[in-house]
């Protein structure tokens, strides 16, 4: 920089590189940001990942279609039910398998509960990244615990559910599930109000998050962002509405969108989505029919030669599975369209020019799950 202005003291500064991560308290996994800093200001940022790469796509190529389901649990470990469902939708599309009515409803209930659980985590950790020392995240993990209890009841695990099956779900929900869910639905709006009181209008949070890390509408589309990140930028695009899979066309719900596309909007969109999910849940348990939960599917599924792309609106965005079948019992190609992986594309653009503290905030607001990014 040779532009020395007159009568201005030019202090010779030098940019320096800081590695945030791979092991850092707020990188949500093993993620590394190579930041070039000028003092506190971020000049450039390069995301480096792959520390958690397990070669899931290769592993899936030698497993049967059913035994790929546990693999999908390990993609986005904060929302495994959605992953299960997305994969099952893709296989059902590939093999042309119908799903019983009751199973569809159970799927919707479980997927919406999963969305709430995942958003609770996302919002909680985002607020934690702002520096609200553990309080919001612990409150929200408490409510997530209530949801995990329900999942535990349904499928016997709290983290890797392996619940959805091709052609339905693995088992019917137990009879104590619906009363517990009703209790949860009754309580949850009050909890949400409490979180709102805790930090929604907090002046410091507004100062920190409003106008920070703006992702403009056009860039958000071009970058392929999806989920709350895309909607916070003002694009009313929700696959539940745009391309209703399962039975989402039967429910009434709104799509919350942001206006500015900043961190605060992303936080608001997630909170509003939780409320909409509660709305869907209420409708779903009202109409829940009786009947089978799993259609007759052979033990080893052999879909016809072809390919299918099944997608759904996961908590973090559009989760898609691109499957290619060669007629055998294992997928020929198993590709995951991981939403957070693609949302990361915009990270450097959002961060440039902001300070280190903002970088953490922006990173937290796009809600990353490294299990999905690295696969």
């Amino acid at each position: 920089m040779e532009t020395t202005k007159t009568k201005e003291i030019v202090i010779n500064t030098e940019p320096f590189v800081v590695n945030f991560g791979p092991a850092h308290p707020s990188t949500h996994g093993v993620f590394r940001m190579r930041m070039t800093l000028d003092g506190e200001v971020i000049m450039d940022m390069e995301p480096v990942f792959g520390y958690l790469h397990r070669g899931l796509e290769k592993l899936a190529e030698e497993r049967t279609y059913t035994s790929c389901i546990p693999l999908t649990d390990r993609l986005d470990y904060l929302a495994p039910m959605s992953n299960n469902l997305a994969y099952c939708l893709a296989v059902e599309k590939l093999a042309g398998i119908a799903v019983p009515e009751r199973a569809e409803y159970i799927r919707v209930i479980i997927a919406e509960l999963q969305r709430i659980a995942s958003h609770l985590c996302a919002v909680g950790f985002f607020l934690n990244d702002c520096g609200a020392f553990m309080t919001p995240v612990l409150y929200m993990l408490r409510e997530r615990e209530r949801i995990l209890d329900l999942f535990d009841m349904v499928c016997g695990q709290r983290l890797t559910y392996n619940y959805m099956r091709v052609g339905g779900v693995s088992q019917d929900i137990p009879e104590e599930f619906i009363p517990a869910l009703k209790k949860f639905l009754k309580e949850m709006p009050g909890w949400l109000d409490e979180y709102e009181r805790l930090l929604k209008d907090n002046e410091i949070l507004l100062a920190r998050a409003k106008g920070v890390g703006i992702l403009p509408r056009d860039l958000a589309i071009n970058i392929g962002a999806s989920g709350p990140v895309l909607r916070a930028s003002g694009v009313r695009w929700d696959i539940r509405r745009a391309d209703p899979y399962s039975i989402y066309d039967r429910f009434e719900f709104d799509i919350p969108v942001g206006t500015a596309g900043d961190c605060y909007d992303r936080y608001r969109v997630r909170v509003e989505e939780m409320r909409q999910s509660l709305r869907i849940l209420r409708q779903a348990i009202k109409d829940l029919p009786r009947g089978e939960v799993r259609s007759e599917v052979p033990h080893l599924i052999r879909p016809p030669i072809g390919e299918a792309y099944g997608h759904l609106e996961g908590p973090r965005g559009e989760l898609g599975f691109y499957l290619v079948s060669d007629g055998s019992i294992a997928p020929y190609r198993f590709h995951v369209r991981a939403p957070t992986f693609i949302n990361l594309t915009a990270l450097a653009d959002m961060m440039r020019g902001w300070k280190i503290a903002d970088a953490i905030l922006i990173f937290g607001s796009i809600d990353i799950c490294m299990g999905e990014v690295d696969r």
Partner: protein
Amino acid sequence: MKFERYGIGIAKGLSVTIRHLLRRPITTQYPEQRLNPSRRTRGNELIWDKDKCTGCGTCAKACHIGAIHISTSTNQVDNKYEVQKYEVDTGYCIFCGLCVEACPFEALFLSYDYECARYRRNDLLHDKEKMVETPERKVSGYFYPKRAAKLPKQSLLVDNDRGKRHER
């Protein structure tokens, strides 16, 4: 930062945190206080029924980790298969439960027990003798609703009064 709200937001937040002082925490002190796990718990062991198993090996095929080893021999007298070796390496097992689902003879179960830490890797290798059902090693109701009905009711946080919001 603009103080357009004159600190009301901060005051609201402070009221929420101070109110928690009056509520009971939800934490359970684990070794002393125990919660009942789900009736469908996929506990960290497999339980195998010697009498029902025919040695067909469906479970081993369903296991995508390859944690189940089974070898059979023919029993010339009764003219049927006999299971020679049945081993599960619970160190590899991911407890997905696909083997339990696959078993056509209801001979394989997951356990209700969840405390299975061992000091040696060898102890994680469970063979025929270790995998039988005993009163201490209860069978989980995963995929067997009739068995699930006999197990104690799962303790749920939604039923718990601790940590409750005081109704406004």
